[in-house]
């Protein structure tokens, strides 16, 4: 058992960090949010991703023939950890692209599809979004009602997706559609690659409770998608949607630890610089217990991420226990942001833009944003169902059992 990275890996980390330092745009302040305009943000992402690609740091673990670097997942983790903790905002518009679209295309697409799409993802040309959720398919993704009817060489798509992150920036979409309404719900689904410029697609931003529009509704009205844009076979959509993302999630989990470590440092700064009754709150024993707990949960996230990564590197396949990772970042984040607000006392109400704002209002935003963490990307309830039924093999409840028949 060894938690140390190898000398080569540490050297690579340093090399990459040094290189990265030179790529960060002038004036970029990692301690706060820099982009409030989406066009600017997209352009910054594209430029940044292009430099990564040209520098030889894009998709380290993918084959060279598709534009990767032919290295192991460790290098990719090192790159992503370093980005996440120094300039995560620059890579964020590519979150769905890199975390969802890319691995799906990489592991389930035809050679032609791969050659068409992967390079333009890696060089930052295209941003992708993911059309899974619908108004009546939230936790119950298999309830997908967006229809795709085959007509000549096309699918004609009608329906609506919702909670689609980055759709307003996206060039392409990975889309789950119903191609056969006559079979059991999860059997009639297919998976398509859709160009967002296709006529009939309308994107409407949805404002969330943070007062920002990070998500969108996407409407499909008689949208033609060539049959060759299907991933896998007709009816395989559910399987592709469910299974292909497991490997990539390992990387996602592994970068959470360092991100939360950075947050802990901010939390400590906050505790040292914020006063309560005229004294720094870090002197308050109750707050100290909360700080400690935040650190402990951060350690869990970090070492759980490494343990999973290590298992994956040894050829283990991360199974449904990957659901733990989701719970390990989403639920502590709600506690940690709440604690951060507690530390600020009344000042915790002040958002960005006042002389009384603390740490640029980051914690205020994060507190509100964190309320979505236990809902998005599979709610905590769904995660616990998955853990209970697939890891612990507890019986399905009778209504859901009945539906599978």
């Amino acid at each position, binding site marked *: 058992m060894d938690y140390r990275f190898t000398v080569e890996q540490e050297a690579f980390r340093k090399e990459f960090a040094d290189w990265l330092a030179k790529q960060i745009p002038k004036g970029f302040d990692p301690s706060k949010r820099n982009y409030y305009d989406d066009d600017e943000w997209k352009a910054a992402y594209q430029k940044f991703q292009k430099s990564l690609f040209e520098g030889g740091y894009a998709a380290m673990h993918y084959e060279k023939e598709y534009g990767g670097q032919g290295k192991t997942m460790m290098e990719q983790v090192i790159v992503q950890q370093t980005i996440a903790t120094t300039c995560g905002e620059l890579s964020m518009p590519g979150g769905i692209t890199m975390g969802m679209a890319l691995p799906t295309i990489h592991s389930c697409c035809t050679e032609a599809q791969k050659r068409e799409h992967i390079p333009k993802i890696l060089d930052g040309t295209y941003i992708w979004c993911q059309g899974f*959720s619908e108004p*009546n398919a*939230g*936790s*119950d993704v298999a*309830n997908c009602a967006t229809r795709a009817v085959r007509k000549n060489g096309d699918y004609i798509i009608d329906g609506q997706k*919702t*909670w689609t992150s980055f759709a307003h920036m996206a060039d392409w979409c990975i889309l789950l559609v119903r191609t056969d309404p006559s079979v059991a719900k999860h059997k009639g689904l297919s998976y398509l690659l859709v160009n967002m410029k296709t006529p009939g697609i309308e994107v409407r931003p*949805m*404002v*969330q*409770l943070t*007062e920002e529009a990070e998500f969108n509704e996407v409407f499909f009205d008689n949208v033609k998608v060539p049959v060759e844009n299907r991933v896998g076979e007709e009816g395989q959509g559910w399987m592709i949607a469910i299974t292909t993302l497991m490997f990539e999630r390992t990387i996602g989990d592994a970068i959470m630890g360092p991100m939360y470590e950075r947050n802990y440092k901010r939390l400590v700064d906050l505790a040292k610089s*914020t*006063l*309560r*009754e*005229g004294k720094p*709150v870090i002197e*308050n024993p*109750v707050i100290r217990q909360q700080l400690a707990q935040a650190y402990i949960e951060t350690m869990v996230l970090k070492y759980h991420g490494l343990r999973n990564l290590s298992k994956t590197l040894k050829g283990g396949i991360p199974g449904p226990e990957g659901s733990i990772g989701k719970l390990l970042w989403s639920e502590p984040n709600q506690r940690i942001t709440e604690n951060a*607000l*507690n530390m*600020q*006392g*009344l*000042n*915790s*109400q*002040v*958002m*960005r*833009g*006042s002389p*009384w*704002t603390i740490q640029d209002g980051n914690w*205020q935003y994060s507190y*509100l944003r964190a*309320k*979505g963490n*236990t*809902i*998005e990307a599979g*709610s*905590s*309830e769904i995660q*616990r169902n998955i853990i209970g039924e697939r890891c612990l093999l507890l019986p399905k*409840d009778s*209504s*859901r059992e009945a*539906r599978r028949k």
Partner: protein
Amino acid sequence: MDINLNEDQVEMMRQARRFCENETPMTFVREMFEDERGFTDDLWNKMVEMGWTAMLIPEQYGGLGMQMTDLMLVLMEHGRAVVPSPLFSTVLLGAEAIIAAGSDAQKEKYLTAIAEGSMRGTLALHEPGSGANPGYIQMEARKDGDGFILSGTKLFVTDAHAADFIVCPARTKAGIDPADGITLFIVDAKAPGVAISQLPVIDRTRKLCAIEFKNVKVGKDGILGEANKGWSPLCKVIRKACVGLAAECIGAAEKAMEIAIEYAKVRVQFDQPIGSFQAIKHRCAQMYVEVESGRSLLYYAAWAQDNTDEQEAAIAASAAKVLCTETGKNVAGSAIQVLGGIGFSWEHEIHFYLKRTKASELAFGDTLYHREQVVSLTT
């Protein structure tokens, strides 16, 4: 012992609910959230007509001489509707400070005007560096002839932008013990040297302001109560303010719970209403437990303000503040989880409940402070 509401009280609640439905629907709340002033004269006048500004004011000053339990019922309804208005600040901060410490002349001047709706007031309590401890008051008032000169900063002053007068505690004697050296002053909101600016807060259904006092002169008639002994009446004001916020939070929690339950009955996933799944059902049940627990403690705390000794009133107010604001926040948060994606949207009203209750948790002493109060007073 009789803890049931009487007929008048039930009717008062019913009227308040109808008022809120008609006058402050969610469309109005949204407008006021974005609006700089945060309320309209029309709304204010109608509230005055309802008698709400006069409820706690003694009859001799044109008020209705009612008890905190009565106002509590109205405020619960306001919590249910997240009503934006300077009613809370005027009746529970401005007016109560005058009631607690004012001379006859001051009462005559301010209370009569508040009761008839022609004046609004607030309390400038918190200072930078206090965290959330209302006893941390360091702003200085220098003696100046018969009067004083105030200089310093107050923060998180509820509705100061809409107030005609501001009650401002300041130190007339150096030290840290709030019981010794704090004097209350009545400051005209338009007085030279008073600069009021709104803070960009999370919950903008209730406006909070920063006030800079630059050499603000307060005459003899602006001294409220006994010099150096302002803490005791201030505590009384804080206590009732806490109960008022607790009432709002229980109203808010109750409504948030209802919203979640209604959704759980109609939202179908996996071919079942989600309320049939225990993860949701038990969450809703827990909301109900918390709302009813909070209500039981709230009723007592409100009653205690007018009917027990100071210590018991203080314990009850602090306990209710802790429990009911946490309940509000927890139930609103839990409702968001039940609603799922839609609950995270701006479009749905649930987030106003989270924001308002979260703000209430912090105002006039946070949970840490009030738990400490409870333990100091019961051990």
